[in-house]
């Protein structure tokens, strides 16, 4: 079964590559990046070993723990989980989860991240192999560490994804995100406090390594370090923890698999009846752009993918506000910069991202826009109106929160000016680039952390262009706002220029993007179809 599944995954990846040049480019880039990281890690570890620097072991433990953490975080925050072998597809075959499990674990390692992780883990064995016992411990640690990385990532993405597709999540998403973000705010504040108390870098790495070694991400990786320095008790404890963790994770994955095998269908709407939401129709009117805006607004409320985006927008501002507040309480001097205002700014930097993904989220349903002949410009504009209705109040709320907490009401206007340039600028840029580049996205009911078979490079480029545009357009306004702190003319100019840049970007972006759509609708439809030529 292991050989069958690994072979299946290889064949699926190869077929996906044949389908589109984008995927080949994507794989080449990912491979280059992976090779670069592997080379860096291997050379680094070997250098550390033979120079015998005292912090060497600490650096290795921190690095490897970060690798495992990355396996879990990156799919959640950025790339999504490769779901080439979706277990739901095996639902009709007479197979048990237990039979599939080893093969699925093995095939998770097929791919750039898996191979890179295995290579780095092997290099770590070389690093620790200064004696027989540390070498054996390093080998055990490497196997457990790799297993933890792969299986933890699977369990977290599958489990969370399953939760987030459901209605219950939708109704409590805001609360969950607020709690999680506040918790991370507390962590950040504590971390900053620790850093400010620790005098030099080596000590800092040392305490980080100690900390990482006692988190689930570092249990396996710090095992050889303990063995090498003769801390037998701690080594035994970590070995126990790591083994129990891997066993528990495997059981959890098995349970999730079992569920997927018996109910493979995507979550649907949940059988709810919807109200008439007449206020949306009154708000947006009956023009084409208004109709698109009304439809998008309903999607912001009903589609888990949009709800997830709102949650993502709010994490950073909440973390900032909470951690800053704690720092102030503990009497630390944060200097003249009221960092709270970074909250609304970070929201403004991110708002364009959902517009990049809009057409991909629609999927093949965009045929409705093709056959009704809706002007591309109305499509672009309608989506931005909906975005504004959703994000605008959040932005105002964050501005007010920042002003109240920092007490700097004088900064509201300049900060809003910068936010307008960044937010509207990003939205305008996304309207343009999102019309040009699309790749298929996982449909609404599916796990939002799923990536479809190899695509996604287009989405990544669109994201980078959008964030870059936001940042670049904000720079002149930021300069003016800064100068405005003691130059009255600049204080007046900042909001004018900020609004001007933002509105200009939106006008240009919707016009260019709309024009492009008018000429390329059929290609857009092909791009967002999972089945494509």
């Amino acid at each position, binding site marked *: 079964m292991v050989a069958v599944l690994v072979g299946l995954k290889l064949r699926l990846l190869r077929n996906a590559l044949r389908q589109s040049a984008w995927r080949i480019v994507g794989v080449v880039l990912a491979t280059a990046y992976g090779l670069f990281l592997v080379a860096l890690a291997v050379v680094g570890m070997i250098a550390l070993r033979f120079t015998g620097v005292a912090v060497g072991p600490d650096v290795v433990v921190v690095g490897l723990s970060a690798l495992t953490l990355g396996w879990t975080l990156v799919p959640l925050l950025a790339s999504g989980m490769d779901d080439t072998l979706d277990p739901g597809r095996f639902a009709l075959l007479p197979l048990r989860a237990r039979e599939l499990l080893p093969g699925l674990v093995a095939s998770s390692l097929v791919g750039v991240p898996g191979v890179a992780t295995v290579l780095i883990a092997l290099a770590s064995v070389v690093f620790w192999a200064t004696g027989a016992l540390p070498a054996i411990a390093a080998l055990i640690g490497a196997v457990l560490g790799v297993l933890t990385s792969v299986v933890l990532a699977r369990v977290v993405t599958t489990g969370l994804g399953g939760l987030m597709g459901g209605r219950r999540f939708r109704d409590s998403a805001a609360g969950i995100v607020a709690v999680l973000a506040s918790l991370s705010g507390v962590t950040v504040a504590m971390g900053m406090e620790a850093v400010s108390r620790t005098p030099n870098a080596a000590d800092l790495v040392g305490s980080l390594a100690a900390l990482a070694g006692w988190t689930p991400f570092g249990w396996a990786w710090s095992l050889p370090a303990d063995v090498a320095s003769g801390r037998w008790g701690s080594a035994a404890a970590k070995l126990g923890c790591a083994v129990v963790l891997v066993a528990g994770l495997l059981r959890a994955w098995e349970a999730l698999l079992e569920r997927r095998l018996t109910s493979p269908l995507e979550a*649907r*709407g*949940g*059988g*709810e*009846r*919807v*109200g*008439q*939401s007449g206020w949306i*129709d009154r708000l947006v009117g*009956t*023009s*084409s752009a*208004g*109709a*698109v805006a*009304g*439809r998008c607004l*309903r*999607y912001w409320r*009903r*589609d888990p993918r949009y709800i997830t985006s709102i949650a993502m927008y709010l994490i950073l501002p909440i973390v900032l506000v909470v951690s800053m507040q704690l720092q102030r309480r503990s009497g630390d001097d944060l200097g003249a910069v009221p960092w709270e205002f970074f909250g609304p700014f970070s929201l403004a930097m991110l708002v364009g991202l959902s517009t990049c993904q809009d057409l991909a989220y*629609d*999927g*093949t*349903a965009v*045929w*409705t*826009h*093709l*056959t*009704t*002949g*809706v*002007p591309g410009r109305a499509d672009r504009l309608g989506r931005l109106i909906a975005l504004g209705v959703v994000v605008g109040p959040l932005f105002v709320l964050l501005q007010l929160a920042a002003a109240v907490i920092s007490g700097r009401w004088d900064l509201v206007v300049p900060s809003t000016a910068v936010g307008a340039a960044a937010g509207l600028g990003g939205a305008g840029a996304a309207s343009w680039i999102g019309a040009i580049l699309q790749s298929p996205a996982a*449909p*609404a*009911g599916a796990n939002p952390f799923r990536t479809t078979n190899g695509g996604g490079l287009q989405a990544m480029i669109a994201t980078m262009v959008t964030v870059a545009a936001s940042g670049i357009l904000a720079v002149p306004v930021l300069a003016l706002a800064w100068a405005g702190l003691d130059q009255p003319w600049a204080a007046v100019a900042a909001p004018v220029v900020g609004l001007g840049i933002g509105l200009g970007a939106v006008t240009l972006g919707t016009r260019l993007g709309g024009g492009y759509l*008018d000429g390329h*609708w*059929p*290609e857009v*439809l*092909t791009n967002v179809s999972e089945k494509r*030529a």
Partner: protein
Amino acid sequence: MTDALVLEQITKNFGAKRAVDALSLTVPRGSLFGLVGPNGAGKTTTLSMATGLLRPDYGRVLVGGVDVWADPPAAKTLMGVLPDGLRLFDRLSGRELLRYVGLLRRVPPADIEARSRELLDALGLTEDADNLVVDYSSGMTKKIGLACALIHAPALLVLDEPFEAVDPLSGEVIRGILRRFVAGGGTVIFSSHVMELVEQLCDQLAVVALGRVVAAGSLDAVRAGESLQQRFLDLLGVAVPSEGVLTWLQSSSGSN
């Protein structure tokens, strides 16, 4: 009088595969035109190119004399479309979806209201009008798609397998709607796999296979005195599996 739909030499390749091969077809105004052919014949691909969903590699499409690929907006206002295998905006309720399509088609809001009510009623969807389309069964999804194609009272209806998964009762309703639509001066082209239905409903048809038209014209001309089913089998030279093949299927109740 211009024809409702003219396809001239349209061609589409998917990689090395030629899905539609220089296919030409004329759908006269006021006809109920059936498109039949085996799986993979290129019906969906043809209808996609006719409706502006898929760009042909070569060829021309005229709807009421307007070139679909030269002046898409003008051609699209004339057509109502029901594609096959594409999603709908399914996080809207049926009523909201109809209103959405109506607004994009620039139908006056008051008309949308009235027409939606009639369409939902006729298709038996009133009960579920406020449920999300994602929760509809496949037949209900077909029906709401059909309602979307009708909402702006088009001159030409292009329907890809409109009767698939639809129950006999709704099927009868849809047939009634199509007949009335044609009697009122409209034109319909639809694809189907049910020969009896095509025979009963259509006055014109075309048989396609391997991306080419094998036979086309009025129903009687294509049938040439046989039943359509028989004629279809003759035209395509279908081989039914002979005795001695697939015998292992008979042991499916026991071991394998």
